[in-house]
Protein backbone atom coordinates (compact mmCIF):
# COMPACT_ATOMS: atom_id res chain seq x y z
CA UNK A 1 0.00 0.00 0.00
CA UNK A 2 1.34 3.41 -0.96
CA UNK A 3 0.61 5.62 2.03
CA UNK A 4 1.04 8.77 -0.08
CA UNK A 5 -2.29 7.97 -1.75
CA UNK A 6 -3.99 8.62 1.58
CA UNK A 7 -2.80 12.06 2.71
CA UNK A 8 -3.75 14.01 5.79
CA UNK A 9 -6.92 16.09 5.34
CA UNK A 10 -7.56 19.33 7.20
CA UNK A 11 -11.32 19.91 7.26
CA UNK A 12 -12.42 23.27 5.88
CA UNK A 13 -14.74 25.95 7.24
CA UNK A 14 -18.43 26.67 6.79
CA UNK A 15 -17.96 30.41 6.39
CA UNK A 16 -21.45 31.43 5.28
CA UNK A 17 -23.13 29.51 8.08
CA UNK A 18 -20.72 31.00 10.61
CA UNK A 19 -21.46 34.53 9.36
CA UNK A 20 -25.21 33.87 9.68
CA UNK A 21 -24.76 32.61 13.26
CA UNK A 22 -22.53 35.58 14.12
CA UNK A 23 -25.20 38.03 12.91
CA UNK A 24 -27.91 36.18 14.86
CA UNK A 25 -25.80 36.17 18.03
CA UNK A 26 -25.06 39.88 17.66
CA UNK A 27 -28.75 40.73 17.28
CA UNK A 28 -29.83 38.44 20.13
CA UNK A 29 -27.05 39.75 22.41
CA UNK A 30 -28.05 43.39 21.87
CA UNK A 31 -31.73 42.41 22.15
CA UNK A 32 -31.14 40.81 25.56
CA UNK A 33 -29.59 44.06 26.73
CA UNK A 34 -32.60 45.98 25.40
CA UNK A 35 -35.19 43.48 26.71
CA UNK A 36 -33.76 43.80 30.21
CA UNK A 37 -34.75 47.46 30.16
CA UNK A 38 -38.19 46.81 28.67
CA UNK A 39 -39.53 43.52 30.06
CA UNK A 40 -40.08 42.97 33.79
CA UNK A 41 -39.51 39.18 33.64
CA UNK A 42 -36.14 39.55 31.91
CA UNK A 43 -35.22 42.30 34.37
CA UNK A 44 -36.13 40.03 37.31
CA UNK A 45 -34.13 37.10 35.88
CA UNK A 46 -31.01 39.29 35.67
CA UNK A 47 -31.60 40.79 39.12
CA UNK A 48 -31.57 37.27 40.56
CA UNK A 49 -28.19 36.46 39.03
CA UNK A 50 -24.99 37.04 41.01
CA UNK A 51 -23.06 40.26 40.78
CA UNK A 52 -20.37 40.03 38.09
CA UNK A 53 -22.25 37.30 36.25
CA UNK A 54 -21.61 36.93 32.52
CA UNK A 55 -22.38 34.23 30.02
CA UNK A 56 -21.02 33.31 26.62
CA UNK A 57 -23.21 31.62 24.07
CA UNK A 58 -21.58 30.32 20.91
CA UNK A 59 -20.33 27.47 18.82
CA UNK A 60 -17.61 25.01 19.81
CA UNK A 61 -14.67 25.22 19.13
CA UNK A 62 -14.04 28.33 17.00
CA UNK A 63 -17.11 30.45 17.70
CA UNK A 64 -18.73 32.81 16.86
CA UNK A 65 -19.67 33.89 20.40
CA UNK A 66 -21.80 36.46 22.13
CA UNK A 67 -21.08 37.59 25.65
CA UNK A 68 -23.71 39.12 27.88
CA UNK A 69 -23.01 40.21 31.44
CA UNK A 70 -24.81 41.68 34.41
CA UNK A 71 -23.77 45.21 35.41
CA UNK A 72 -23.64 46.62 38.95
CA UNK A 73 -27.28 47.75 38.69
CA UNK A 74 -28.38 44.21 37.84
CA UNK A 75 -29.06 44.97 34.15
CA UNK A 76 -27.94 42.96 31.15
CA UNK A 77 -25.05 44.31 29.12
CA UNK A 78 -23.90 43.04 25.72
CA UNK A 79 -20.14 42.60 26.00
CA UNK A 80 -19.23 41.77 22.40
CA UNK A 81 -18.21 38.65 20.55
CA UNK A 82 -14.74 37.91 21.88
CA UNK A 83 -14.52 35.87 25.10
CA UNK A 84 -10.70 36.32 25.30
CA UNK A 85 -9.60 37.94 28.54
CA UNK A 86 -13.11 38.15 30.01
CA UNK A 87 -14.20 36.47 33.22
CA UNK A 88 -17.15 34.35 32.14
CA UNK A 89 -18.65 32.07 34.82
CA UNK A 90 -21.14 30.45 32.43
CA UNK A 91 -20.17 29.19 28.99
CA UNK A 92 -22.86 27.63 26.83
CA UNK A 93 -21.38 26.08 23.70
CA UNK A 94 -23.43 24.58 20.93
CA UNK A 95 -21.49 21.46 19.93
CA UNK A 96 -21.03 22.35 16.26
CA UNK A 97 -22.04 24.75 13.50
CA UNK A 98 -24.79 22.48 12.15
CA UNK A 99 -26.48 22.18 15.54
CA UNK A 100 -26.25 25.96 15.88
CA UNK A 101 -27.90 26.34 12.48
CA UNK A 102 -30.76 24.09 13.63
CA UNK A 103 -31.27 26.38 16.63
CA UNK A 104 -30.83 29.71 14.82
CA UNK A 105 -33.03 28.77 11.88
CA UNK A 106 -35.66 27.73 14.44
CA UNK A 107 -35.83 24.13 13.25
CA UNK A 108 -35.16 23.20 16.88
CA UNK A 109 -36.18 25.22 19.90
CA UNK A 110 -33.55 26.07 22.50
CA UNK A 111 -35.30 23.75 24.99
CA UNK A 112 -35.35 20.85 22.51
CA UNK A 113 -31.71 21.47 21.57
CA UNK A 114 -30.84 21.36 25.30
CA UNK A 115 -32.80 18.12 25.72
CA UNK A 116 -31.01 16.62 22.70
CA UNK A 117 -27.69 17.39 24.30
CA UNK A 118 -26.64 19.82 21.59
CA UNK A 119 -25.30 22.22 24.21
CA UNK A 120 -22.30 21.86 26.48
CA UNK A 121 -22.69 23.93 29.63
CA UNK A 122 -19.70 24.94 31.73
CA UNK A 123 -20.94 26.65 34.86
CA UNK A 124 -23.98 26.70 37.09
CA UNK A 125 -26.90 24.83 35.51
CA UNK A 126 -29.45 26.96 37.40
CA UNK A 127 -27.98 30.09 35.78
CA UNK A 128 -28.03 28.33 32.41
CA UNK A 129 -31.76 27.65 32.77
CA UNK A 130 -32.35 31.33 33.62
CA UNK A 131 -30.49 32.24 30.42
CA UNK A 132 -32.64 29.81 28.42
CA UNK A 133 -35.79 31.43 29.85
CA UNK A 134 -34.44 34.87 28.89
CA UNK A 135 -33.58 33.67 25.38
CA UNK A 136 -37.10 32.29 25.01
CA UNK A 137 -38.64 35.63 25.95
CA UNK A 138 -36.30 37.60 23.69
CA UNK A 139 -37.22 35.33 20.79
CA UNK A 140 -40.91 36.00 21.49
CA UNK A 141 -40.22 39.73 21.18
CA UNK A 142 -37.96 39.50 18.14
CA UNK A 143 -39.82 37.00 15.99
CA UNK A 144 -43.30 36.79 14.53
CA UNK A 145 -45.52 34.32 16.40
CA UNK A 146 -45.41 31.74 13.61
CA UNK A 147 -41.63 31.42 13.88
CA UNK A 148 -41.27 32.13 17.60
CA UNK A 149 -43.69 29.29 18.40
CA UNK A 150 -41.14 26.91 16.79
CA UNK A 151 -38.24 28.43 18.67
CA UNK A 152 -39.57 28.56 22.24
CA UNK A 153 -40.72 25.87 24.63
CA UNK A 154 -44.16 27.41 25.19
CA UNK A 155 -45.47 30.56 23.52
CA UNK A 156 -46.85 32.90 26.25
CA UNK A 157 -50.61 33.28 26.54
CA UNK A 158 -52.38 36.66 26.26
CA UNK A 159 -52.70 36.80 30.03
CA UNK A 160 -48.91 36.43 30.38
CA UNK A 161 -47.92 38.81 27.60
CA UNK A 162 -50.63 40.96 26.06
CA UNK A 163 -50.37 41.74 22.32
CA UNK A 164 -50.07 45.47 23.07
CA UNK A 165 -47.18 44.90 25.50
CA UNK A 166 -45.57 42.51 23.05
CA UNK A 167 -45.77 44.81 20.01
CA UNK A 168 -44.71 47.94 21.88
CA UNK A 169 -41.90 45.93 23.51
CA UNK A 170 -40.86 44.62 20.10
CA UNK A 171 -40.54 48.12 18.62
CA UNK A 172 -38.56 49.38 21.61
CA UNK A 173 -36.30 46.31 21.74
CA UNK A 174 -35.55 46.47 17.99
CA UNK A 175 -34.82 50.20 18.20
CA UNK A 176 -32.56 49.81 21.26
CA UNK A 177 -30.85 46.74 19.76
CA UNK A 178 -30.10 48.55 16.49
CA UNK A 179 -28.90 51.68 18.24
CA UNK A 180 -27.11 49.72 20.95
CA UNK A 181 -28.41 51.26 24.17
Amino acid sequence: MNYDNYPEIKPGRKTIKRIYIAVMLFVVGRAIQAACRVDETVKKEFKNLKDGFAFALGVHPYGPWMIVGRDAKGRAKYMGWNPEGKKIPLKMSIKNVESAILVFTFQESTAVAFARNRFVVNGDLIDALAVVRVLDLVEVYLLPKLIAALAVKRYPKWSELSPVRKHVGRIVIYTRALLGF
Partner: protein
Amino acid sequence: MQSPNYYEFLGRPKMISGKRALEQIPLELEGYGAGRPLILVQGGPGSRGLADTITKALYDSSLVIGALYDGAIAGSTSGIASELAGLFRARKCDSIIAIGGGALVDVAKCVNMEVAEKKPALGLSGEGKISRELKPMVLVPVALVSGNEAANRAYIDGAACISHFLSPDVVVIDHRMTSTAETGPTLYSGLTALAHAVEAAISVSANPMIDAYAYASLRLLCEQLPAAVKKPSDKKSSVAVANAAALAAIAFSNAPAGMAHYLAEALADGTGINAGICMALLVRALLKTRMAEKKGIREELCLALAGPGMFSAAPASGRAKAALGAIDGMFADLGGMMPGSLKEIGVTQERLNEAVREAVKASPSKLSAKECMAVIGRAWNGK
Protein backbone atom coordinates in the same frame (compact mmCIF):
# COMPACT_ATOMS: atom_id res chain seq x y z
CA MET B 1 -41.31 -9.63 34.07
CA GLN B 2 -38.62 -12.16 34.84
CA SER B 3 -36.70 -11.09 37.95
CA PRO B 4 -33.24 -12.66 37.82
CA ASN B 5 -31.21 -13.37 40.93
CA TYR B 6 -28.10 -12.05 39.27
CA TYR B 7 -27.06 -10.53 35.96
CA GLU B 8 -24.40 -8.37 34.33
CA PHE B 9 -24.94 -6.10 31.35
CA LEU B 10 -22.61 -3.76 29.50
CA GLY B 11 -24.45 -0.98 27.68
CA ARG B 12 -21.72 -0.12 25.21
CA PRO B 13 -21.50 1.62 22.69
CA LYS B 14 -22.94 5.09 23.17
CA MET B 15 -25.48 5.77 20.45
CA ILE B 16 -26.10 9.04 18.65
CA SER B 17 -28.86 8.94 16.08
CA GLY B 18 -30.76 11.45 14.00
CA LYS B 19 -30.48 14.81 12.33
CA ARG B 20 -26.91 16.13 12.01
CA ALA B 21 -25.55 13.20 14.06
CA LEU B 22 -22.32 13.02 12.01
CA GLU B 23 -21.34 16.50 13.16
CA GLN B 24 -21.18 15.24 16.77
CA ILE B 25 -18.16 13.02 16.01
CA PRO B 26 -15.40 15.63 16.64
CA LEU B 27 -16.65 16.46 20.13
CA GLU B 28 -17.12 12.79 20.98
CA LEU B 29 -13.52 12.06 19.98
CA GLU B 30 -12.38 15.15 21.85
CA GLY B 31 -13.96 13.61 24.95
CA TYR B 32 -11.59 10.67 24.54
CA GLY B 33 -8.63 12.99 24.04
CA ALA B 34 -8.43 12.12 20.34
CA GLY B 35 -8.39 14.42 17.33
CA ARG B 36 -6.60 12.65 14.50
CA PRO B 37 -8.67 9.74 13.24
CA LEU B 38 -7.98 7.18 10.54
CA ILE B 39 -11.21 7.02 8.53
CA LEU B 40 -12.13 3.81 6.75
CA VAL B 41 -14.93 4.19 4.24
CA GLN B 42 -16.76 1.35 2.57
CA GLY B 43 -15.54 0.96 -1.00
CA GLY B 44 -17.61 0.32 -4.11
CA PRO B 45 -20.14 2.44 -5.98
CA GLY B 46 -21.19 5.52 -4.03
CA SER B 47 -18.19 5.42 -1.71
CA ARG B 48 -16.91 8.77 -2.99
CA GLY B 49 -20.18 10.28 -1.79
CA LEU B 50 -19.71 8.75 1.68
CA ALA B 51 -16.15 10.12 1.90
CA ASP B 52 -17.31 13.60 0.88
CA THR B 53 -20.19 13.54 3.36
CA ILE B 54 -17.98 12.61 6.30
CA THR B 55 -15.29 15.13 5.35
CA LYS B 56 -17.85 17.94 5.15
CA ALA B 57 -19.43 16.84 8.43
CA LEU B 58 -16.07 17.35 10.13
CA TYR B 59 -15.71 20.95 8.88
CA ASP B 60 -15.25 23.62 11.53
CA SER B 61 -13.85 21.18 14.06
CA SER B 62 -10.43 21.01 15.67
CA LEU B 63 -10.03 17.51 14.28
CA VAL B 64 -7.55 16.61 11.51
CA ILE B 65 -8.15 13.52 9.39
CA GLY B 66 -4.92 11.49 9.62
CA ALA B 67 -5.86 9.50 6.52
CA LEU B 68 -9.02 8.54 4.70
CA TYR B 69 -8.97 5.05 3.18
CA ASP B 70 -11.76 4.29 0.72
CA GLY B 71 -10.18 1.42 -1.19
CA ALA B 72 -11.89 -1.92 -1.65
CA ILE B 73 -11.92 -4.34 1.29
CA ALA B 74 -13.03 -7.74 0.07
CA GLY B 75 -12.72 -9.50 3.40
CA SER B 76 -11.19 -9.21 6.84
CA THR B 77 -7.70 -10.60 6.41
CA SER B 78 -4.42 -10.21 8.31
CA GLY B 79 -2.88 -8.61 5.20
CA ILE B 80 -5.22 -5.64 4.89
CA ALA B 81 -5.37 -5.21 8.69
CA SER B 82 -1.62 -4.91 9.06
CA GLU B 83 -1.33 -2.58 6.02
CA LEU B 84 -3.94 -0.26 7.48
CA ALA B 85 -2.31 -0.50 10.92
CA GLY B 86 0.86 0.71 9.17
CA LEU B 87 -1.08 3.64 7.67
CA PHE B 88 -2.48 4.41 11.15
CA ARG B 89 1.03 4.57 12.61
CA ALA B 90 2.56 6.43 9.65
CA ARG B 91 -0.03 9.19 9.92
CA LYS B 92 0.20 9.28 13.75
CA CYS B 93 -3.53 8.66 14.10
CA ASP B 94 -5.12 8.29 17.52
CA SER B 95 -8.60 6.98 16.75
CA ILE B 96 -10.64 5.18 14.09
CA ILE B 97 -13.87 6.08 12.31
CA ALA B 98 -15.38 3.16 10.36
CA ILE B 99 -18.07 4.02 7.83
CA GLY B 100 -19.96 1.07 6.41
CA GLY B 101 -20.60 -2.43 7.64
CA GLY B 102 -19.49 -6.04 7.40
CA ALA B 103 -15.84 -6.78 6.62
CA LEU B 104 -14.82 -3.11 6.74
CA VAL B 105 -15.78 -2.87 10.42
CA ASP B 106 -14.03 -6.17 11.19
CA VAL B 107 -10.89 -4.74 9.59
CA ALA B 108 -11.25 -1.48 11.56
CA LYS B 109 -11.45 -3.45 14.81
CA CYS B 110 -8.45 -5.58 13.82
CA VAL B 111 -6.41 -2.45 13.00
CA ASN B 112 -7.38 -1.13 16.42
CA MET B 113 -6.23 -4.37 18.09
CA GLU B 114 -2.92 -4.28 16.22
CA VAL B 115 -2.09 -0.67 17.06
CA ALA B 116 -3.24 -0.84 20.70
CA GLU B 117 -1.87 -4.27 21.61
CA LYS B 118 1.19 -3.94 19.31
CA LYS B 119 0.81 -7.48 17.97
CA PRO B 120 -0.94 -9.07 14.97
CA ALA B 121 -4.72 -9.21 15.37
CA LEU B 122 -4.81 -12.89 14.41
CA GLY B 123 -2.82 -13.68 17.55
CA LEU B 124 -5.63 -12.12 19.58
CA SER B 125 -8.38 -14.38 18.21
CA GLY B 126 -10.43 -16.19 20.80
CA GLU B 127 -12.30 -14.87 23.81
CA GLY B 128 -10.94 -12.29 26.26
CA LYS B 129 -7.45 -12.03 24.75
CA ILE B 130 -7.43 -8.21 24.71
CA SER B 131 -5.97 -6.79 27.89
CA ARG B 132 -6.72 -3.05 27.66
CA GLU B 133 -8.95 -0.35 26.24
CA LEU B 134 -8.30 0.09 22.54
CA LYS B 135 -8.08 3.39 20.67
CA PRO B 136 -11.37 5.31 20.50
CA MET B 137 -13.53 3.93 17.70
CA VAL B 138 -16.60 5.46 16.09
CA LEU B 139 -18.85 3.33 13.93
CA VAL B 140 -21.03 5.03 11.33
CA PRO B 141 -23.30 2.33 9.90
CA VAL B 142 -24.48 2.14 6.32
CA ALA B 143 -25.95 -1.36 6.74
CA LEU B 144 -24.80 -3.58 9.61
CA VAL B 145 -24.90 -6.75 7.53
CA SER B 146 -22.97 -9.13 9.78
CA GLY B 147 -24.56 -8.13 13.09
CA ASN B 148 -21.10 -8.06 14.69
CA GLU B 149 -20.25 -4.47 13.82
CA ALA B 150 -21.72 -2.83 16.92
CA ALA B 151 -21.13 -5.95 19.01
CA ASN B 152 -18.15 -7.18 20.99
CA ARG B 153 -16.59 -9.28 18.26
CA ALA B 154 -14.56 -9.11 15.06
CA TYR B 155 -13.43 -11.70 12.54
CA ILE B 156 -10.00 -12.02 11.02
CA ASP B 157 -9.07 -14.76 8.55
CA GLY B 158 -12.26 -16.54 9.63
CA ALA B 159 -11.31 -16.57 13.32
CA ALA B 160 -13.45 -14.72 15.86
CA CYS B 161 -12.00 -12.29 18.39
CA ILE B 162 -14.39 -11.64 21.29
CA SER B 163 -13.86 -9.01 23.95
CA HIS B 164 -15.97 -6.18 25.34
CA PHE B 165 -13.10 -3.85 24.33
CA LEU B 166 -14.09 -4.60 20.72
CA SER B 167 -17.47 -2.87 20.98
CA PRO B 168 -17.16 0.52 19.29
CA ASP B 169 -17.15 3.47 21.70
CA VAL B 170 -19.74 5.42 19.75
CA VAL B 171 -22.23 4.47 17.05
CA VAL B 172 -23.39 7.43 14.98
CA ILE B 173 -26.51 6.83 12.89
CA ASP B 174 -27.30 9.46 10.29
CA HIS B 175 -29.65 9.17 7.33
CA ARG B 176 -27.01 10.64 5.02
CA MET B 177 -25.18 7.33 5.45
CA THR B 178 -27.95 4.77 6.10
CA SER B 179 -30.04 5.86 3.11
CA THR B 180 -27.18 4.99 0.74
CA ALA B 181 -27.51 1.25 1.55
CA GLU B 182 -28.89 -1.02 -1.13
CA THR B 183 -31.87 -3.36 -0.76
CA GLY B 184 -29.86 -6.53 -0.11
CA PRO B 185 -27.67 -5.20 2.72
CA THR B 186 -30.68 -3.48 4.31
CA LEU B 187 -32.59 -6.78 4.34
CA TYR B 188 -29.63 -8.79 5.63
CA SER B 189 -28.90 -6.34 8.43
CA GLY B 190 -32.55 -6.35 9.52
CA LEU B 191 -32.83 -10.14 9.49
CA THR B 192 -29.57 -10.63 11.38
CA ALA B 193 -30.73 -8.12 13.98
CA LEU B 194 -34.05 -9.95 14.29
CA ALA B 195 -32.31 -13.26 14.93
CA HIS B 196 -29.79 -11.80 17.38
CA ALA B 197 -32.45 -9.95 19.37
CA VAL B 198 -34.71 -13.03 19.59
CA GLU B 199 -31.87 -15.36 20.54
CA ALA B 200 -30.62 -12.95 23.22
CA ALA B 201 -34.13 -12.72 24.65
CA ILE B 202 -34.57 -16.51 24.89
CA SER B 203 -31.01 -17.22 26.05
CA VAL B 204 -30.10 -18.29 29.58
CA SER B 205 -28.56 -14.81 30.06
CA ALA B 206 -31.87 -13.03 29.41
CA ASN B 207 -32.33 -10.19 31.86
CA PRO B 208 -34.36 -6.96 32.03
CA MET B 209 -31.68 -4.99 30.16
CA ILE B 210 -31.45 -7.50 27.32
CA ASP B 211 -35.26 -7.49 27.17
CA ALA B 212 -35.29 -3.70 26.89
CA TYR B 213 -32.78 -3.65 24.03
CA ALA B 214 -34.44 -6.61 22.29
CA TYR B 215 -37.86 -4.99 22.63
CA ALA B 216 -36.71 -1.73 21.04
CA SER B 217 -34.88 -3.56 18.28
CA LEU B 218 -37.75 -5.93 17.44
CA ARG B 219 -40.42 -3.23 17.45
CA LEU B 220 -38.35 -1.09 15.09
CA LEU B 221 -37.81 -4.06 12.79
CA CYS B 222 -41.44 -5.20 12.77
CA GLU B 223 -42.62 -1.66 12.00
CA GLN B 224 -39.91 -0.41 9.63
CA LEU B 225 -37.98 -3.26 7.98
CA PRO B 226 -40.48 -3.95 5.15
CA ALA B 227 -40.61 -0.21 4.33
CA ALA B 228 -36.80 0.04 4.39
CA VAL B 229 -36.43 -2.97 2.09
CA LYS B 230 -39.01 -1.60 -0.35
CA LYS B 231 -37.27 1.81 -0.40
CA PRO B 232 -33.77 1.68 1.13
CA SER B 233 -33.23 5.39 0.45
CA ASP B 234 -36.08 6.29 2.82
CA LYS B 235 -34.51 8.36 5.61
CA LYS B 236 -36.82 7.36 8.45
CA SER B 237 -36.94 3.62 7.88
CA SER B 238 -33.23 3.29 7.03
CA VAL B 239 -32.33 5.04 10.31
CA ALA B 240 -34.81 2.81 12.16
CA VAL B 241 -33.23 -0.37 10.76
CA ALA B 242 -29.72 0.84 11.61
CA ASN B 243 -30.90 1.59 15.15
CA ALA B 244 -32.50 -1.84 15.41
CA ALA B 245 -29.29 -3.49 14.21
CA ALA B 246 -27.14 -1.60 16.72
CA LEU B 247 -29.55 -2.31 19.60
CA ALA B 248 -29.69 -6.01 18.71
CA ALA B 249 -25.90 -6.08 18.59
CA ILE B 250 -25.71 -4.72 22.15
CA ALA B 251 -28.17 -7.39 23.34
CA PHE B 252 -26.15 -9.99 21.41
CA SER B 253 -22.90 -8.80 23.08
CA ASN B 254 -24.43 -9.57 26.47
CA ALA B 255 -25.74 -13.05 25.66
CA PRO B 256 -24.11 -16.19 24.28
CA ALA B 257 -24.63 -16.71 20.53
CA GLY B 258 -27.49 -19.14 20.04
CA MET B 259 -28.34 -22.12 17.88
CA ALA B 260 -29.70 -20.11 14.94
CA HIS B 261 -26.51 -18.02 14.86
CA TYR B 262 -24.16 -21.01 14.70
CA LEU B 263 -26.31 -22.98 12.26
CA ALA B 264 -26.64 -19.96 9.95
CA GLU B 265 -22.90 -19.30 10.00
CA ALA B 266 -22.24 -22.95 9.17
CA LEU B 267 -24.74 -22.86 6.29
CA ALA B 268 -23.40 -19.56 4.94
CA ASP B 269 -19.80 -20.81 5.06
CA GLY B 270 -20.53 -23.79 2.91
CA THR B 271 -23.09 -22.41 0.50
CA GLY B 272 -22.33 -18.71 0.08
CA ILE B 273 -25.92 -17.88 1.01
CA ASN B 274 -26.30 -14.81 3.19
CA ALA B 275 -26.16 -15.71 6.89
CA GLY B 276 -28.84 -13.14 7.78
CA ILE B 277 -31.49 -14.87 5.67
CA CYS B 278 -30.55 -18.28 7.10
CA MET B 279 -30.55 -16.87 10.63
CA ALA B 280 -34.03 -15.39 10.28
CA LEU B 281 -35.47 -18.63 8.87
CA LEU B 282 -33.73 -20.61 11.61
CA VAL B 283 -34.88 -18.37 14.44
CA ARG B 284 -38.47 -18.65 13.25
CA ALA B 285 -38.06 -22.43 13.11
CA LEU B 286 -36.51 -22.34 16.59
CA LEU B 287 -39.53 -20.55 18.03
CA LYS B 288 -41.90 -22.93 16.23
CA THR B 289 -39.98 -25.91 17.58
CA ARG B 290 -40.26 -24.53 21.11
CA MET B 291 -43.99 -24.14 20.59
CA ALA B 292 -44.30 -27.69 19.25
CA GLU B 293 -42.37 -29.00 22.26
CA LYS B 294 -44.69 -26.96 24.52
CA LYS B 295 -41.74 -25.00 25.93
CA GLY B 296 -43.54 -21.75 25.13
CA ILE B 297 -42.13 -18.31 24.36
CA ARG B 298 -41.43 -15.71 27.04
CA GLU B 299 -44.14 -13.09 27.46
CA GLU B 300 -41.58 -10.27 27.05
CA LEU B 301 -40.57 -11.64 23.65
CA CYS B 302 -44.20 -12.16 22.59
CA LEU B 303 -44.89 -8.49 23.43
CA ALA B 304 -41.84 -7.35 21.45
CA LEU B 305 -42.77 -9.37 18.37
CA ALA B 306 -46.54 -8.99 18.38
CA GLY B 307 -46.59 -5.37 19.52
CA PRO B 308 -48.77 -3.95 22.31
CA GLY B 309 -51.98 -4.01 20.23
CA MET B 310 -51.85 -7.62 19.07
CA PHE B 311 -50.40 -8.78 22.41
CA SER B 312 -53.20 -7.30 24.49
CA ALA B 313 -55.91 -8.41 22.07
CA ALA B 314 -54.78 -12.05 22.20
CA PRO B 315 -55.78 -14.33 25.09
CA ALA B 316 -52.88 -15.29 27.38
CA SER B 317 -52.67 -18.74 25.80
CA GLY B 318 -52.57 -17.29 22.26
CA ARG B 319 -49.81 -14.71 22.67
CA ALA B 320 -47.01 -16.96 21.46
CA LYS B 321 -49.07 -17.73 18.36
CA ALA B 322 -49.61 -14.00 17.83
CA ALA B 323 -45.83 -13.44 18.08
CA LEU B 324 -45.14 -16.12 15.48
CA GLY B 325 -47.90 -14.65 13.32
CA ALA B 326 -46.14 -11.28 13.52
CA ILE B 327 -42.88 -12.80 12.24
CA ASP B 328 -44.74 -14.56 9.42
CA GLY B 329 -46.51 -11.29 8.62
CA MET B 330 -43.24 -9.37 8.47
CA PHE B 331 -41.65 -12.01 6.21
CA ALA B 332 -44.68 -11.82 3.92
CA ASP B 333 -44.38 -8.01 3.81
CA LEU B 334 -40.77 -8.38 2.67
CA GLY B 335 -42.17 -9.92 -0.51
CA GLY B 336 -39.99 -11.75 -3.02
CA MET B 337 -36.79 -10.82 -1.20
CA MET B 338 -37.60 -13.19 1.66
CA PRO B 339 -37.64 -16.92 0.91
CA GLY B 340 -40.05 -19.18 2.77
CA SER B 341 -37.55 -21.93 3.54
CA LEU B 342 -33.89 -22.96 3.29
CA LYS B 343 -34.93 -25.32 0.50
CA GLU B 344 -36.05 -22.37 -1.63
CA ILE B 345 -32.60 -20.74 -1.47
CA GLY B 346 -30.85 -23.85 -2.68
CA VAL B 347 -29.70 -25.52 0.54
CA THR B 348 -29.58 -29.24 -0.11
CA GLN B 349 -30.80 -31.79 2.42
CA GLU B 350 -27.32 -33.35 2.52
CA ARG B 351 -25.85 -30.02 3.60
CA LEU B 352 -28.04 -29.94 6.73
CA ASN B 353 -26.16 -32.75 8.57
CA GLU B 354 -22.84 -31.10 7.74
CA ALA B 355 -24.06 -27.71 9.01
CA VAL B 356 -25.30 -29.28 12.26
CA ARG B 357 -21.92 -30.94 12.80
CA GLU B 358 -20.07 -27.66 12.18
CA ALA B 359 -22.42 -25.69 14.44
CA VAL B 360 -22.07 -28.18 17.30
CA LYS B 361 -18.30 -28.02 16.91
CA ALA B 362 -18.19 -24.21 16.77
CA SER B 363 -20.50 -23.61 19.72
CA PRO B 364 -18.77 -23.42 23.11
CA SER B 365 -22.08 -24.14 24.84
CA LYS B 366 -22.32 -27.70 23.48
CA LEU B 367 -25.44 -27.52 21.34
CA SER B 368 -27.45 -30.72 21.07
CA ALA B 369 -27.15 -32.18 17.56
CA LYS B 370 -30.67 -33.62 17.85
CA GLU B 371 -32.19 -30.24 18.71
CA CYS B 372 -30.19 -28.57 15.95
CA MET B 373 -31.44 -31.14 13.45
CA ALA B 374 -35.05 -30.57 14.49
CA VAL B 375 -34.70 -26.79 14.01
CA ILE B 376 -32.75 -26.87 10.75
CA GLY B 377 -35.14 -29.49 9.36
CA ARG B 378 -38.11 -27.27 10.14
CA ALA B 379 -36.36 -24.25 8.57
CA TRP B 380 -35.52 -26.32 5.47
CA ASN B 381 -39.14 -27.31 5.03
CA GLY B 382 -40.38 -23.84 5.94
CA LYS B 383 -43.08 -25.29 8.23
